[in-house]
């Protein structure tokens, strides 16, 4: 019920031109579509994707036209939204949430000449590429800071949905928090939504009331930061975007997704006719994930350690290095072993030390 299509400036006029000069319009402009799961003003995940779209406009100027639709629900309705965008003449469509995976594949079958790019999924086709950022690498230094900073040894984590991407983030944060502080405990809440500020704030509130003094979030809005600020003496991490509004505290650092170079590269490929279905998964090294400025109450030595972790990962060290056991105690990674990407992409277990079950 909260959906509106906004065409970027001159979209309607361009569409009229396209009607009168069909051949030329096709050659002149590449039409790039974006399907967002939240509003572009969420201050987090969708905001960063939209920054990527703006970078595409900035880079290509008159050569591109972009359209986007925000707050598209995951599920059947997404298929309608994507179809509409494909019918509207988009040459390439980026669908930016895990739940758009099957709808993207379905629509792609009907539009073989349109290129599709699905973010954070694993299903590809001749005209469907996938891309994601290694968000879990971003969790590593944050986990270290969390472990060092907590006084109650209770760390709260708000997850959106129990999907591999989120579980991976929890495991990465936990592994590094536990290395910094063997006594840490994770309290995990599943919000079952990517974007609902009131619910995200309530979840943070519930965690804080139960003694958590560090809050991780894997949801899209800045509401948990607002709840942390209200409670005082609680720290949190910017998710997907810098969330600099909450500097220097409660936000002490952030995991920033950087989409602009990828979007520009892919749109360029469409222009050159060199686009192929690929699978891109970059982290610190590729510059698709950045660590935000470390601020607030974090002492200098912890800050230096966190930066060192980031630098090591950027240089090729894996965020998960054995020995790491699964929650039930069975071995996952042997001493010095690192996981294959395939293992990470389907991760459906907690590592040893995390309490609770993953909802199925």
């Amino acid at each position: 019920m909260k959906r509106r299509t906004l065409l970027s400036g001159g979209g309607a006029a361009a569409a009229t031109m396209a009607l009168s000069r069909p051949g030329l319009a096709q050659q002149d402009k590449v039409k790039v579509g974006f399907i967002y799961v939240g509003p572009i003003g969420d201050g987090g995940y969708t905001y960063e994707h939209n920054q990527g779209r703006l970078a595409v406009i900035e880079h290509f100027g008159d050569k591109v036209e972009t359209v986007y639709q925000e707050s598209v629900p995951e599920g059947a309705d997404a298929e309608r939204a994507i179809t509409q965008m494909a019918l509207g003449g988009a040459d390439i469509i980026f669908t930016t949430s895990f739940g758009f995976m099957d709808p993207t594949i379905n629509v792609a079958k009907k539009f073989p000449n349109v290129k599709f790019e699905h973010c954070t999924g694993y299903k590809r086709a001749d005209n469907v590429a996938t891309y994601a950022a290694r968000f879990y690498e971003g969790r590593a230094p944050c986990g270290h800071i969390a472990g060092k900073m907590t006084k109650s040894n209770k760390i709260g984590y708000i997850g959106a949905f129990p999907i591999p991407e989120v579980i991976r983030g929890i495991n990465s944060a936990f592994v590094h928090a536990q290395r910094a502080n063997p006594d840490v405990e994770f309290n995990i809440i599943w919000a079952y939504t990517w974007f609902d500020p009131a619910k995200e704030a309530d979840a943070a509130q519930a965690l804080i009331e139960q003694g958590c003094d560090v809050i991780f979030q894997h949801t899209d809005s800045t509401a948990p930061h607002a709840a942390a600020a209200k409670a005082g003496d609680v720290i949190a991490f910017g998710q997907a975007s810098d969330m600099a509004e909450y500097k220097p505290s409660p936000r002490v650092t952030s995991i920033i997704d950087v989409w602009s170079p990828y979007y520009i590269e892919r749109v360029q490929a469409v222009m050159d006719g060199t686009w192929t279905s690929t699978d891109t998964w970059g982290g610190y090294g590729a510059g698709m994930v950045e660590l935000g400025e470390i601020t607030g109450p974090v002492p200098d030595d912890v800050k230096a350690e966190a930066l060192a972790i980031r630098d090591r990962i950027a240089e090729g060290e894996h965020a998960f290095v054995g020995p790491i056991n699964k929650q039930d105690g069975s071995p996952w990674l042997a001493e010095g072993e690192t996981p294959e990407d395939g293992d990470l992409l389907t991760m459906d277990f907690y590592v040893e030390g995390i309490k609770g079950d993953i909802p199925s």
Partner: protein
Amino acid sequence: MDLSTIDPAILLASLMVASTPILLAAIGELVVEKSGVLNLGVEGMMITGAICGFAVAVETGSPLLGFVAAAAGGAVLSMTFGVLTQFFLSNQVATGLALTLFGLGLSALMGQGYVGIKPPGLGDVNLGPLADIPFLGTVLFRHDFMIYVSLALVAGVWAFLKYSRAGLILRAVGESHDAAHALGYKVVLVRLAAIAFGGACAGLGGAYLSLIRVPQWTEGMTAGAGWIALAIVVFASWRAWGVLIGAYLFGGVAVLQLNLQAAGAHIPVEYLSMSPYLVTILVLVIMSSGRGRAALNAPASLGRSFHASS
């Protein structure tokens, strides 16, 4: 599982905070529907109230003025609905839906400059010794004034509808606008007043979200709360106290399931998350099966347009 980490007093207190936005919106919508008007624009009015209240509170530094502005903003927006449906006799369902879409867009526009700003805080009402009563003090007497306003509104609406002459007229208009018209009551005027009241309440609910519960401005931050408010009015079968129970039930289950999760309880959270909706469906089934004894409680003229010539 360690349920001892859940403090029942704090749980009940946060339940009240979580429920207040939908309670405010629902009590306003109750009055609107009692007058025979179905305004589906609650979501739009809530989010407009949220940004109006937020903006004014930030600019003036006074959350109180913020709430006043939120009520005004919600009421003004509701008047577009009022004028369209009462004077131009547009379809109420379609107009209400349009109002929601319009409100979401308008609020996003108005809120451009307010992302990431912290609003001035609203202190708790000092109730002196009452706040020190063990358990009850934490649950009931350490809240901000809007919680008490919302409870007073429920009581006020209940008394107004049940005991006052004006309330009787409002109900008459909602039950049979032709009869009320024949008796000389100004049907359109009564309905416009009800719509404005509903808009003001929805605005307050939205501002409670942006100023106290979250507290920040984010586009689309009501995320469906307005629709829940609409459902609660039906759930309550158009009774004021039923709205209170319904709102606290919705808010309660939401807060409870988050707390249980945080405490690591081994319960399938999916079921808890859907329980308020299941309860609503159940209530609707029961209401409509018993030859609609309660269903008959729906105002007879609900959703029908009125024109003096008809």
